[in-house]
């Protein structure tokens, strides 16, 4: 398991927990839920830059490069897309909608790690 994967797991887990708590205690989209999505997005940008520099320097990955970058692009769009969608109706449920990002991005970085190193764990 790489440090990047560990950080990603923690960021995603934190976001999911924050969004779930906010679903219970707020009846509008909470700032903390939105910030937790921003943190995931920031993490993904760092991950992409890190991967980009490494691969540009000639490091090879176990899987297909364009599958890897397909996942990165999709993952980068996810927090933005879900945020816009969650803001359409500003209720308690916006927080629960936003909690999906942490769950899905975790799965995606798990897959990214598999493509990068051959195994995520």
């Amino acid at each position, binding site marked *: 398991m790489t440090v990047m994967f560990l950080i990603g797991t923690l960021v995603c887990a934190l976001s999911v927990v924050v969004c779930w708590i906010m679903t219970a*205690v707020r*009846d*509008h989209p909470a700032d903390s839920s939105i910030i937790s999505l921003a943190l995931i997005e920031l993490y993904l940008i760092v991950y992409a830059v890190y991967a980009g520099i490494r691969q540009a320097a000639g490091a090879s990955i176990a899987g297909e490069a364009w599958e890897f970058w*397909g996942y990165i692009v*999709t993952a980068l769009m*996810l927090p933005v897309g879900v945020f816009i969608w*969650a803001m359409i109706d500003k*209720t308690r*449920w916006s927080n629960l909608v936003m909690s*999906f990002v942490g769950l899905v991005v975790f799965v995606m970085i798990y897959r990214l790690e598999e493509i990068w190193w051959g195994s995520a764990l």
Partner: protein
Amino acid sequence: MSENLNSTTADGGRVKAASTDGGRAKAASMPTPRNRGVGMLIITAYGIFAVSSFARALYQILTDFDASPVAYALSGFAAAVYIVATLALARIGARAWLIALIAVLVELTGVLSVGLWTYLQPELFNEATVWSHFGEGYAFVPLVLPFIGLFWLLRHRPGRSAARGTQA
């Protein structure tokens, strides 16, 4: 905890005030529409599956369709079903409701039959699809999702509650 709640009522007050004349009044006269509240959640789940199954199918079909044509064709079909279901669920109206119902039923049939098929003839599926083994690769969410979608659609039939919002 209570202190925390109070402090945010101040900044949340604006939002609440705005939703009181819009949201609450609306809620009093008619129930939450099909694509709001919990419905948003279901649509989000469908949307995520639409995007991810589409990306996966696109990748599989473009790179090596010959490796497992049955599985890849089914991936593409599943992606199309999820996209139609997402769009139809997100729309209000009797026609969208019917399209959503058909899409969800096709999805249910798909996940059950492909799930079974992958157990009976695994040699046809050396590459996975969303629906392989009843959605095992996706934590069985593809198996649960159509039931949730069906439940939601049957609870919000156009003729009964949503119709008032639709006709206007």
